[in-house]
C-alpha cells in the first residue's frame, strides 16, 4: 500500500507541482494517474521512489515513510518503467534486464538466468537477449523495459507513460500484456499517462490530476465516466465519455439473434436478407447484401467487409460498436474462439441500456 499524506512539491521559483495530495494506492491493484502535462502526475510518481522528495507531507509505503530509506536501496526494491524504455544502449538486452539483480549483488550467472526467464515472461524470444536495444522495435524495447523493472521481483511497479512512444496498435497489445502479467504477478502498480482511454482501460482506480498538481477526482473508472466530479474532469474525459462508459456495462439481458450464413465456396441462392459469409467453417468474414448474386463459384472478394466483432460476454461497448460498424447494421457476435455465435442490433443494445437506467432509478 502506498499513501500520499498532504504531499506538496514546490520548486524554488514558486511553481507548485503537487498541491496537498492525499491518496492511497491499494496493494495489488493498478492505479492510474492521469491528467494534462504539468499536472504533477509524474512528480507524484517519482516521489514514491525518491527520485523527487516532497517539500511537505510524506509518502508512505506499507506505513513506512520513504524518506527513512536509503534512496538507492529503496529504488532497487521498486520496479520502474520509463518513457521510451530508457534502456542502456551499450548493454545487451539480457544485461539490461539483469541490471537490478546485479546491483543487488547477485552473481552474474544467476542474474542472467533470471533475466532470460523474464524475457520469456514478457513474450520475447530468448535469442533476443544477445541483441543491443537499437536492434529492437519500439514495442520490443518497451517489453524489455518492463522485464527490467520486474527483474528483482519488486512488490511495487512504477510506470511513467511507458507506452506513449509506440504506435496505437502496438500500444493496445502492450496494454493487454500488462493486464495479463498483472493477473499472474499481482503487483501494486502506479501507472502514469495523459491518455484517458489508457487510464480507464488499465486502472482499477483512476486519479485525475489538473494543472497545478491538484487531485480532481479519485475513483473507479466507471464512476469517473458516469459521474465526473467537476467541469474539468468532464472536459478531460471528453465528449465520448458516455460511449466509453459502456466499457463498464455488462451485457446481461442482451438478446442475440441469428442470420443466414454461407460458407465461402458454397452455393448461395440470392436472398432478400443480409447474409453473413463464413470462412474455415465458422469464422465471420464479411456480408453479402440483400439480393446480391454471383456468377459461378464466388470468393471472399465478393463479400462486403464486416464491422468489428463483439465477443460474447464482454461489456456493451463492443456490442454497440459491432452493430454500428457493420454494413448490415447487425453486429456479429463471436465466442471466445472467434466462431460465429449470432448478431446484435444497436437498437437492442440501447434497449438494454435504457432498461438498466430504469432499474437504477
Amino acid at each position: 500500500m502506498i499513501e500520499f499524506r498532504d504531499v506538496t512539491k514546490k520548486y524554488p521559483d514558486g511553481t507548485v507541482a503537487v498541491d496537498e495530495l492525499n491518496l492511497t494506492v491499494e496493494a495489488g491493484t493498478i492505479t492510474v494517474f492521469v491528467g494534462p502535462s504539468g499536472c504533477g502526475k509524474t512528480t507524484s510518481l517519482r516521489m514514491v521512489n525518491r527520485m523527487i522528495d516532497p517539500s511537505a507531507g510524506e509518502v508512505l509505503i506499507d506505513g513506512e515513510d520513504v524518506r527513512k530509506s536509503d534512496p538507492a536501496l529503496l529504488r532497487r526494491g521498486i520496479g520502474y518503467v520509463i518513457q521510451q524504455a530508457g534502456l542502456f544502449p551499450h548493454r545487451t538486452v539480457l544485461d539490461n534486464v539483469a541490471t537490478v539483480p546485479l546491483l543487488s549483488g547477485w552473481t552474474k550467472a544467476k542474474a542472467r538466468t533470471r533475466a532470460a526467464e523474464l524475457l520469456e515472461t514478457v513474450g520475447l524470444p530468448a535469442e533476443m537477449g544477445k541483441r543491443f536495444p537499437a536492434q529492437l522495435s519500439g514495442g520490443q524495447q518497451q517489453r524489455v523495459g518492463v522485464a527490467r523493472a520486474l527483474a528483482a521481483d519488486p512488490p511495487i511497479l512504477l510506470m511513467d507513460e511507458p507506452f506513449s512512444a509506440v504506435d496505437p496498435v502496438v500500444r493496445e497489445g502492450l496494454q493487454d500484456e500488462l493486464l495479463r502479467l498483472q493477473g499472474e504477478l499481482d503487483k501494486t502498480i502506479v501507472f502514469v499517462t495523459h491518455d484517458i482511454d489508457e487510464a480507464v482501460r488499465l486502472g482499477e482506480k483512476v486519479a485525475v490530476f489538473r494543472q497545478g498538481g491538484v487531485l480532481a477526482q479519485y475513483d473507479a473508472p466507471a464512476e469517473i465516466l458516469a459521474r465526473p466530479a467537476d467541469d474539468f474532469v468532464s472536459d478531460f474525459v471528453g465528449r465520448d465519455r458516455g460511449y466509453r462508459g459502456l466499457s463498464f456495462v455488462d451485457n446481461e439481458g442482451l438478446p442475440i439473434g441469428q442470420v443466414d450464413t454461407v460458407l465461402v465456396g458454397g452455393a448461395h441462392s440470392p436472398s432478400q436478407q443480409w447474409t453473413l459469409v463464413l470462412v474455415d467453417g465458422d469464422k465471420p468474414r464479411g456480408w453479402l447484401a440483400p439480393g446480391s448474386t454471383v456468377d459461378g463459384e464466388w470468393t471472399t472478394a465478393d463479400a462486403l467487409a464486416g464491422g468489428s466483432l463483439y465477443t460474447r460476454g464482454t461489456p456493451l461497448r463492443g456490442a454497440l460498436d459491432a452493430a454500428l460498424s457493420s454494413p448490415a447494421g447487425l453486429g456479429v457476435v463471436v465466442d471466445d474462439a472467434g466462431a460465429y455465435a449470432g448478431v446484435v442490433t444497436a437498437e437492442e443494445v440501447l434497449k438494454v441500456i435504457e432498461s438498466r437506467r430504469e432499474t437504477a432509478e
Partner: protein
Amino acid sequence: MFGDIGTYLSSPGNRDLVLQQLLEHIYLSLLPLVLGLLVAIPLGWTATRFRWLRGLLLGGANILYTIPSLALFVILPAIIGTGITSPVNVIVALTLYTATLLVRPVVDALEAVPQHVVAAAVAMGYRPLARFFAVELPLAVPVLAAGARVASVSNISLVSVGALVGIGGLGLLFTKGFEIDYLPPIIIGILLTLILALIVDLLIVLLRNMLTRWQRVGAHVGGGS
C-alpha cells in the same frame, strides 16, 4: 637525398640517438594524453553536476589553451620548481593542454547521454558514482575518443617544441640538424613524428571500436512488437 639518410643511419651512434629520442617522444606525448584524460573526466563531470562551475571551467580551459607552448615550457619550472630542462615540464604542460582540450568534449558527451537513460539508471538504484562508470562514461566513449585523437596529434607535434629548451624527443633531431646545417636528421624526425601520430591515431580508433560495439550494430532488425 635518401643516400644521405642512409649514410646518417649507418652510424650506430646516430641510430641509437634516433631510437632513444623516438622512445622519449612517445613517452613525453602519450603519458600526458593519459594523465590529461584522467584530469579532464572528473573536471567535466563536476562541470555537468554544478552548473555554476561550467562556464568557469570551460572558459578557463580555453584561456589556458591559448598560452603558447614554448612560453609554458619556460614559465613552468619557475612555478613548479623543476629544472628548465626537466622532462616533467613537458609532461605537466602537455597534460594541461590535453585536459583543457578534452574538458569540453567530456562535458558535451555527458550532456548528450539521453535524459531518459540517466533517469532509468537513477530509478534502477545506481548511486551517482557507480552510475557514472556504468552508464554515462561508456556512452561518452565515442565523443571522448574523438577528443583524444585531436589531443594525441597535438601532443605529438608539441613535444618537438621541447627541444628548443633542451628537452629530449624527436625535436632534438631538428635542433641538431639545424646546428650542423645537415638535412637527414630533420627529415627522419619529420617522418617518425608523422608515422607516430598515424599509429597512435589508429590505436585510439581500434580501442574506441572495441569499447563501442553497441554503436555499430545494424539498427532495427526487430520488426513487429
